[in-house]
Every structure is written in structure tokens, then in C-alpha cells.
């Protein structure tokens, strides 16, 4: 149980940090940010990911997000985006003060996550769900060994609403993130 509270306290900090940099912190941003922290940053938060609908997704994390909301760690509000091009609902998370507090703020563990997340956020120009989805999906495909032209065609099948330009920009941004998180690894590649 203590471990769960610890995870929830970390997630609350992640939400706070994201909200300093983004207008909206929703499910997609959270799912993809944690994915990048775990698999690009190498910091294991214990969430297993597989590919679902809009990219790498963790059911365990979705479960924690629901538990954290029920315990008062954060609040989730549903909002509607409506335009001629699209009409859908999304969730907006706001950190709250409820839930059992585990002091992770001053731990080395949180320090590493904060540093990693800051490095992930820095090169992303438009910090929104669409960009997080793009970067996390490209990284996911690269991790599966899909590169070059195959990456382009697989990505097109998965995400027809992204343009070639966006994909190119996403690959470039990901490269910058990789360089800033682990320059040694990137230079070797």
C-alpha cells in the first residue's frame, strides 16, 4: 500500500510539473510523458506499456490515475473540444492536496524524474497532447527496431491525421531529447 501511495505522490508531482509547462494536462500527455520517462529516461516507475489506439499506453497507469483521483491526489474534469473538424471529450487533471502524502519531493528518485522530464519538455515547441503522442509513438516504433522508410509507412497506417512535415519535425525533436538525456548513447548510434 505504501508503494502505491509513493507512486501516486510521484504522479502528483509529475502533474504539477507538466502544468507549469502546458496549458492542459490530460490523459494522453500523462501516459506519454511517463512512457518517455521510463523508457527513454531509463527510470522504472513500474508501469507496463503496450500499443493502444493513440500510442504507447499503460493500463496500470490508467488504474493509478483513477485511484489517485478517488483518493484526492488530483481532480479530473471532462471538457469538450468542438470544431467543424472534430468533436470529442478529453480529461483535464489538476493536482490537489488530498491523499496520503509520501515525501518524495526531496528524494533522489524524484530529482531524477524531474530532471528527465524537464529535458523531455524543453525541446518540444508546442507542448500539447498531439506532440506528445507523436514523439512517444515515434520513439515506441524506433524501440521496436522500426526505422527509416518503414517507420514512415507504419506511422502513416497508425496515424493518418499527421502530416509528413509533422512526422519529420517529431523525429527531429525526439533526436534532440535523446541527445539531451543520454548524449553518449546518441553519439554512439
Amino acid at each position, binding site marked *: 500500500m505504501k508503494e502505491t501511495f509513493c507512486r501516486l505522490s510521484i504522479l502528483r508531482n509529475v502533474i504539477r510539473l507538466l502544468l507549469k509547462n502546458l496549458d492542459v494536462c490530460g490523459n494522453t500527455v500523462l501516459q506519454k510523458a511517463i512512457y518517455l520517462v521510463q523508457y527513454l529516461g531509463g527510470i522504472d516507475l513500474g508501469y507496463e506499456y503496450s*500499443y493502444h489506439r493513440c500510442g504507447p499506453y499503460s493500463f496500470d497507469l490508467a488504474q493509478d490515475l*483513477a*485511484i489517485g483521483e478517488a483518493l484526492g491526489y488530483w481532480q479530473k474534469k*471532462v471538457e469538450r*473540444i468542438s470544431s467543424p473538424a472534430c468533436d470529442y471529450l478529453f480529461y483535464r487533471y489538476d493536482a490537489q492536496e488530498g491523499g496520503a502524502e509520501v515525501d518524495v519531493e526531496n528524494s533522489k528518485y524524484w530529482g531524477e524524474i524531474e530532471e528527465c522530464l524537464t529535458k523531455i519538455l524543453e525541446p518540444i515547441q508546442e507542448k500539447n497532447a498531439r506532440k506528445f503522442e507523436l514523439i512517444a509513438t515515434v520513439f515506441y516504433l524506433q524501440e521496436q*527496431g522500426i526505422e527509416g522508410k518503414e517507420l514512415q509507412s507504419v506511422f502513416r497506417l497508425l496515424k493518418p491525421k499527421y502530416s509528413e512535415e509533422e512526422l519529420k519535425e517529431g523525429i527531429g525533436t525526439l533526436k534532440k531529447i535523446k541527445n539531451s538525456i543520454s548524449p553518449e548513447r546518441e553519439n554512439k548510434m
Partner: protein
Amino acid sequence: MNSEPFQRLRRIRQLAFSEFVYPGAGHSRFEHSLGVMHLVTKVFDRMREKRNVRDLLESSEGLGYDLSMWDCARATLRIAALVHDLGHMPFSHAGEIEWEDSCGRKNKIKHEFFTYSIVRKYLPEILDNHPENASLNINADDIANFLEGKIINQRLTKLRPWRELLVGEFDCDRMDYLLRDSYHLGVDYGRFDLERVTSSLTLVRHPDRGDIIFALEEDGLLAIESLILARYYMYKQVYFHKVRRYLDRVYGDLLPKIVTKHFGHVDFASNLEKYLDFDDWVVNCYLKELASEGDRDAKKLIRRECWKVIYEITSITELNKLTEAKSILKEKGIESLLDSFENQRTHKFQQSEIMVVEQNKEIKPLKEASEIVTKLPEIIFVGRLYVSGKDRKRILNERLLQNFYDTSNQETKR
């Protein structure tokens, strides 16, 4: 089906110790796996007949399905459904406890991990020489990756939407276990209109992202509501039943002892043969042996001697009360067993992600289409504190937990 890993499923009970509450619950993962294969085939064939689904998958703007891709998708889905539970521990989910690996790290055993490993190790021999696979060219890695939700090539990208029939809001795994469990247990909570649900499923493009997802045609809305409610009621009434949960916990605590007796020190992740040798029959033998040696927990399982619930919460927000109650009992020298973190989400996906296609072809989230579903709690939760019958009498006589009952109105329950 004649392979050793699949036949082992005959010896893995679907509902662990539910049989001690509902005597009919002796069914196994074997028939469930067959049932899931039957249902995915039924849904797949029905969807293939739908013009909008064919247009979406066959067009070049879609996934470019041709005849061989349709056949490949059908066969992949059927095989994946058949093998999706191969990795279960004895007594299914009751055996999914924390386990120490060869490096001394503690990890929770997850049956999915063993399923993928078993598929990768045992399926090549079967698939590679199967005459019906000559034209399909499906390999074991494809099946494991499909189950695991991995996309490593174009074929798996094209197969991706079908995975939601195994891991999704309307998945056939869920449809089968709800109906099968209801039938065997003799309860009605898990029933829903299967025909209507299976004929109402369709594929659409997500209105914003453009990816192909499963959705529900509006005329199946009531049937889907009843499926979601059925799952909710089954968790409340059957899967989280107090006796079953208690026996599951006792079994979980005993399991390392049983494994050590049978195998010595073993790391199942690197020894699949031993894992496959481990089933309900083995566990039952050792339970009897341990009970005859005087093991208190083994005796409880053999004789169905259950501790009693002394305090129960149904909202996760009351979690601290449960731990407080345990501390009070500990101070008085009373041993208790806490079962506090069993929870399930009502939905697999966020409600905003579950789409309904209206008569006018507009796509709407379930959250807006169904008032009933929206009102269900997102987490199905129960937490309990168990004590022996003797201690329960003492706690009630001395009113040791009186403050807790007063605030949660549990006095009447007792």
C-alpha cells in the same frame, strides 16, 4: 489444442476458491479459452460482412486489406484467443502474488508474461508445420506480439485494431467469462444480450486522431450497458466475495511454501517446463500434505475454515480507516488479515474513448450516450479486515471498533 500447455488449462480452475462459495464454480481455463475463440470468430465474421468495416480496412487510405490479409487476421485472432490464458498460475488470479526472481527482486507474477513466453517457446513447433498455416505464414512471434500489443512490422500494424477483441472495452474475453461464470455459478448478475452486443460492434476512425478503433452501433447501446453493469455486479457479488477473497489471500500466503516443497528454489521465468508442471492438481496434493503436517493455513483451505469479516469498506477514500482498525486490533493483541487493495476499473478505457455510432453516422463518446454508465464509479473497490471467530466475538463484546461502525453504518450489517 492437444499440446501440453493447452491441456494443462484443464487443470487450472477459472475462479480459484469461488467453488467454496458457489459449488458449481469448478470450470477451468480450458473451456473459457475455447469460448473466447468461438466468440472472436463470431464477432470477426459478423464484422467482415459489414460494408463500412470492409471499406475502412480494404481501401488504400485504410489498411489495404486483401483476401489473404483477411484470412491472416482471422487466423491470428483465433489462435491468440485460444492461447491468451496459457500462462495462468494454479488457481488463476489467486496465484498472482509477489515473487522473488533469481536476482532476489520481488515482482508480481503476471500470467500475461508467462503466456507470451509459452507461446514463443511452444507454438513454433505447432504452427510451423501446420498444413493450414502454409498459405497464411503466421508465426509464434506474431501471435505473442499481437497479444502483447507490440507493433514491430506492417503486418502487426494492420492487425492492431482486432486486438481490442481480446483487450478492450467490448472484448470477447470479458463476454465469455461473464456468461460462463454466471452459468456455472447459477447467478444471473453476469448475463447480457450476447447476440445484440456481437452484432452491434463495428470499426470507425477516431473523430480526432483518425486511427481505426472499435465502436458500438447505437442500437446496441442497451446491450452494452447491460454488459458493463454485468461486469460491475459480478465483481461486487462474485469476484470480490468475502469468502473467496479470504481463501485467495490465505492461498497466496501459502503458495511460496508449496512451490518450495515441490520444486525447491525455482525461477519460473527461466524455467517454463517447471512452470507448466505446476497446476491445481499439484497444489491440491501439497495442501493435503501440509495440512496433515499441521500447517494452520493449509488446514483452513482444506476444511474451508474462514475467518470472519469484522470491518469492511467499499470506498477507496476510507482506506485509512481500515489500516487504523487493524492497528487498534494489533494493540489489543488480536491477529487480523487485511485485504485492502483489490480493485478494478469499471472501464478498460476512459469513457471518452468508448465511441458510439449514432443512426446519422455521427460518432459520440459513451459518456454522452449513456447516462447509466456515466454514473458508475470508476473504481470497483472493496477492502476488508478479517479476524478469527473467537476474536470477532471479543471485538464485538468489548466494542473495540465501535467508532468505525458508527461512521460507516456497518453495525446493522453484522
